[in-house]
């Protein structure tokens, strides 16, 4: 077992973990952040995307011990004072989901896309989301939601 200290959504956690534990399992099973979901378990689908020190990563492809001393933001850490993050609000307004399973990862990656490029073209949004799969194939409204946020000039996550 290895002791790790990780800041998750602004709160510091210190736990003994097995080195083989994946970050996504740590977040869900130890910290209780079940908003981050496991989709494919093969690092393809992006459903488990979180921010590690402000950059998007697939949390099924990072060990919890690699996050020791670092800062993680999950989908659960985006809203502030009961207000949805602008990207969450835009997904809601644009109906950017069907079954909703890809949504947590899609929103985390969409925020990263705009952090990287506040004024992306439609093509740049689609390329920026290429590591996130929506098996309902509802990409059109997802892209619209990102465009809506970019149009508002809201470019960054509260803590990301």
């Amino acid at each position, binding site marked *: 077992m290895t002791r790790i200290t990780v800041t998750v959504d602004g709160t510091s956690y210190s736990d003994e973990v097995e*080195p083989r534990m994946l970050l996504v*399992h740590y977040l869900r099973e130890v910290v209780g952040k079940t908003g981050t979901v496991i989709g494919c378990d093969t690092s393809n689908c992006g459903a488990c995307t979180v921010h590690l020190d402000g950059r998007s990563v697939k949390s099924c492809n990072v060990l919890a011990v690699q996050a020791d001393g670092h800062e993680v933001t999950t989908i659960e850490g985006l809203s502030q004072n009961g207000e949805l993050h602008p990207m969450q609000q835009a997904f809601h307004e644009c109906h950017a989901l069907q079954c909703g399973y890809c949504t947590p990862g899609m929103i985390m990656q969409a925020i990263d896309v705009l952090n990287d490029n506040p004024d992306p073209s439609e093509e740049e949004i689609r390329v920026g989301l290429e*590591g996130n799969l929506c098996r309902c194939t509802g990409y059109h409204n997802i892209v619209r939601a990102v465009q809506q946020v970019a149009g508002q000039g809201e470019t960054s996550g509260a803590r990301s």
Partner: protein
Amino acid sequence: MIPASFDYVAPTSVAEALTALAEAGDDAKVLAGGQSLLPILRMRLNAPEKVVDLGRIEELRGVREDGDHLVIGAMTTYADALASAAVSEHAAVLHAALKEVADPQIRHRGTVGGALVHADPAGDVGAPALALGTEFVITGSGGERTVAASDFFQDLFETAVAEGELLTAIRIPKHTGWGGHYEKFVRVAHQWSIVAVAATVRVDGGTIAEAAIGLTNMGSTPLRATAVEAALVGASASDEAIREACAAAAEGTDPPSDLNGSADYRRALAPVLTRRAVLAAAGG
């Protein structure tokens, strides 16, 4: 899917990492960015007793200029190398290839050195590194040695890095003023190359003065398309001349057959992709 149990150590210097590797013998795996290793461990294709994580070794990160060379630390992420103005100015073909690696999340974690040592023939960094005449700095208990690109890639997933050694940096001769393009052929987003071509050329007054072509997934290692390079030098940077020179792109290759395409299909792709890559690199 969960990896088998392993001991974990995260040294903070190259010297400590070498000691950890020496202690573990052949049951150790080196963890760089983990974007290839973690899927392998999760699927239990490999179950090392010890994992040596290089992620805490700051001296292995970053891009710097050293005279007429670019030096990229082995633990520099794809994203950081992509953001480096020095890489886009002096190694345009590497910059172009980095844009095509996997997806943004993978590029934030995966490292240039990790990918080169993993040496997947469908990986996107090997071919541009080969085309640029990269020197590989390998460190072991006996000190540092430098291996030429032509000697680095030895076979499928095999490089000149021996047990107990680490790739610590790559040195790329600056290709300032050279155009570069990476033409990657895939069927769906963020996948491994079926075939890809790394082309870098220097055009002087409408004529190709120098050219280097690296091929991805046309054999068990990245390959140089030497026949094409020879045919390009002195040719006009025109569509017709480039098309003719690139016809020999599959010469001397031994591409795999798999679900994505037969060896013959890949041999047919290579000249097409090479022509596109060279045209783009030449500014056409």
